[in-house]
């Protein structure tokens, strides 16, 4: 095989270069799938090696949250140590029971942690985030989600608690951000909680007769988290993905120019359509981040 055929269209047959033929594309797909499977197997055997090196600051998250409240014309929320403790306990429990949800597999609820930390509330809410790199990313993602934004700009909340905790979730080093809101003022109505924007009204006596043991805390909640030596799989996906899509794009441009110079018209090649679709893929990939909110 002539190496030129890898990059340039065939001189006689005008067939596409091998690297942009359907065989080539299939190989890229298989390589990418292999990479994904490889990472997930590796994460099971060597937990904590893969993950995200996040730089999220608890104080900054509170500051940005209050900025959003200010924009909405609301009073800022003040930090509550009890809510900080409850948020840290929630995060620790998520790592301990290995789950990503508002409700633990063991049945623990967000308000269990609040009450366990001695926080008696009339209104309470919880927002969760994981796999974000910065404090700004976290708050922006919450604000972009209508249900989470509802918690942030809820006028009923007076206090806030934040925990930024590192741990291993599903084999990957993960930084969890737990944001808890609450109001301790005694109101006539039954206590209401909002988890990720979903409202739940608790029975009147549940908040008052809670006797569960306070959870044990295994992580501190208010320090900047920087763990060196972690391999970020999302950065690898992004680099490899952008590289492959760009290579295909460049070879398509070369194909277009060579055919044009040779005065050849190939019915099966639609360079503009392919290029625009690939460009949309590359731009989307560059703009994507692995962070998720709940």
């Amino acid at each position: 095989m002539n190496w030129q055929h890898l990059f340039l269209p065939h001189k006689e047959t005008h067939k596409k270069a091998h690297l942009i033929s359907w065989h080539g594309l299939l190989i890229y797909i298989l390589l990418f799938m292999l990479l994904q499977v490889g990472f997930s197997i590796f994460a099971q055997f060597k937990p904590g090696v893969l993950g995200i090196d996040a730089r999220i600051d608890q104080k900054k998250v509170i500051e940005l949250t209050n900025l959003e409240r200010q924009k909405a014309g609301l009073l800022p929320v003040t930090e509550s140590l009890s809510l900080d403790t409850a948020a840290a306990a929630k995060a620790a429990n998520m790592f301990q029971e290995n789950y990503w949800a508002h409700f633990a597999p063991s049945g623990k609820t967000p308000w269990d942690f609040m009450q366990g930390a001695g926080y008696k509330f009339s209104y309470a809410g919880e927002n969760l985030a994981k796999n974000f790199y910065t404090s700004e990313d976290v708050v922006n993602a919450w604000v972009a989600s209508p249900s989470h934004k509802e918690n942030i700009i809820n006028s009923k909340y007076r206090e806030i608690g934040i925990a930024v905790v590192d741990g291993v979730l599903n084999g990957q080093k993960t930084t969890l951000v737990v944001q808890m809101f609450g109001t301790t003022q005694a109101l006539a109505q039954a206590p209401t909680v909002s988890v990720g924007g979903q409202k739940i009204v608790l029975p009147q006596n549940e908040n008052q007769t809670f006797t569960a043991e306070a959870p044990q805390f295994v992580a501190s909640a208010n320090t900047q988290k920087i763990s060196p030596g972690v391999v970020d799989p999302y950065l690898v996906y992004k680099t490899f993905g952008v590289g492959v899509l760009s290579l295909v794009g460049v070879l398509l441009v070369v194909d277009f120019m060579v055919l044009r110079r040779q005065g050849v018209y190939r019915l099966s090649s639609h360079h503009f359509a392919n290029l625009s679709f690939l460009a949309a893929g590359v731009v989307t990939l560059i703009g994507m981040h692995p962070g998720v909110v709940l």
Partner: protein
Amino acid sequence: METKKLEYYIKRHNYVGISFMALVVTIWLTTFRKSAISTLQIISLLSLCFLGWSLIHHYFDKSLKTEVVIEYLMTVGLVIVILLSFIQ
């Protein structure tokens, strides 16, 4: 194929391609990072447009062959597989 007809085909081919490009840019700009629409939905929409458009275009161009269809499917598959790695 006579030169005039060939030139007409090439021009039409390019115009149709550029109009598709405009469609992709419009869809992308109006949907990306909008809270109600997920990235997966955007890529699915773009992929459907890309496949639907190529199917119609090549059908009328009388160039709809299995290899052509596979090539388009592979392009879509590649973009989807790469982007899916970010969506958990």
